[in-house]
């Protein structure tokens, strides 16, 4: 009875399952918001200005597939481990990886996928009771993608090395922030991931220094062409690293002294330095 002393009329019952169905939509929305916040909180990659190449047929096919399944792909973007669409998201990533042929594309794809794992870890950890297994699995994948990216970037363009370093530094920053909020096994797993990031940074930094050293060496020993005055790469072979020591085939007395314009001070008679005595 209500306050009118009038019996409430018979009502149709709410269909069963409606409550859970609506709740599922709400939870998906909450997770998407969390993912977006996690992405905004991370500093954001400085994507290199990649040179655009002609699309291979494989990429074209992939684009067609994505446009056909685009709606599902978009819906899957915000999914987390355990969600229905998460396996679809991973399947799309496998296609992307398989289609990346050049080193540049591989680094780009692996960077993007590593960043997605990072955002997923942050979103999972932000949940009330972070699922340990899902966090551990996602961290393991983050480590795998990062190591793959580091491997490819190490043998690639110095610009790619630089941006790989930026990504791994960002990973370390985000994981360190996330670690502060945790306890127990999950915290330990995050620490392992941070250690792996530091190892990747060290490897990339060493690669970067090696590449820089090699390019400086090339500039110092380059031949001056008559017509342009430009420095061409030296005909001698590139230096190699043996047990951390840079071995150069260029003899000391073969070095030209150059002025500020990178022209030799005396082209007619090179400045020959005495060989060091032991």
């Amino acid at each position: 009875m209500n306050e009118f002393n009038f019996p409430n009329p018979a009502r149709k019952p709410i269909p069963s399952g409606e409550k859970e169905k609506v709740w599922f939509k709400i939870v998906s929305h909450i997770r998407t918001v969390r993912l977006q916040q996690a992405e905004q909180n991370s500093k954001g990659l400085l994507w290199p200005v990649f040179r655009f190449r002609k699309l291979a047929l494989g990429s074209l096919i992939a684009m067609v597939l994505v446009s056909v399944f685009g709606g599902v792909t978009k819906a899957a973007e915000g999914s987390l481990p355990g969600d229905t669409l998460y396996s679809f998201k991973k399947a799309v990533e496998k296609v992307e990886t398989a289609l990346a042929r050049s080193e540049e594309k591989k680094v780009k794809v692996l960077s993007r996928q590593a960043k997605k794992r990072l955002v997923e870890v942050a979103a999972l950890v932000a949940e009330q009771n972070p699922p340990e297994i899902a966090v551990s699995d996602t961290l393991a994948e983050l480590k795998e993608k990062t190591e793959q990216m580091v491997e490819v970037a190490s043998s690639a363009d110095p610009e790619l090395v630089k941006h790989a370093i930026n990504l791994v530094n960002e990973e370390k920053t985000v994981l360190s922030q996330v670690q502060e909020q945790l306890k127990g096994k999950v915290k330990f797993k995050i620490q392992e991931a941070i250690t792996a990031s530091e190892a990747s940074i060290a490897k990339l930094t060493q690669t970067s220094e090696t590449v820089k050293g090699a390019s400086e060496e090339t500039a110092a020993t380059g031949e001056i062409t008559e017509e342009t005055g430009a420095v061409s790469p030296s005909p001698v072979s590139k230096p190699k690293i043996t047990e951390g020591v840079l071995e150069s085939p260029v003899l000391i007395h073969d070095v030209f002294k150059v002025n500020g314009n990178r022209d030799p001070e005396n082209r007619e008679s090179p400045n020959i330095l005495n060989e060091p005595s032991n």
Partner: protein
Amino acid sequence: MAQALPQEEKLVKRASGGDETAFSELYDLYFEKVYRFVYYRVNHKQTAEDVVAETFMRVWNRLAEIKNVNAFSGWLFQIARNLVIDHYRARKPNLDLNELENVLAYEENFLDKTNLALEHKIFLEVLEKLSGDQKLVIKFKFFDELENHEIAKILNKSEGAIRVIQHRAIEALKKLLN
């Protein structure tokens, strides 16, 4: 203003801090009322699901801004009603807002007519004879089982005004029924 139950007040505070468990408990508390409120106005199961989901999503997005935890339920129904209005306006752009509640023939779907007692049918016929605000208040109180503070929030009136309208509506109903 009516006081929210202490338990509900705690849930709202926790949910406004991002506590998903607290928010799910609020959802459990209010889902049925909100669903009926919406379903018996939009007359379509899928639309009702979407509107109810959207209602709670908006609540989640803006819960951190809530200043008065006691106003939570009124605010919740206000959002739900606005979304129902948006739904109708999308279908009929020139619909007069004042006539909206009269257009909503929710009695058709809301009540199981086969079980409707004679007195209920008479009541519904008499209800239609009340003024706009009186009809709304009685419908919100009787069919949607909303509290005065919730109706006040929806209609953007004070609780005192709602009590006055309700009183006059009941007096008018008594006369008509007699």
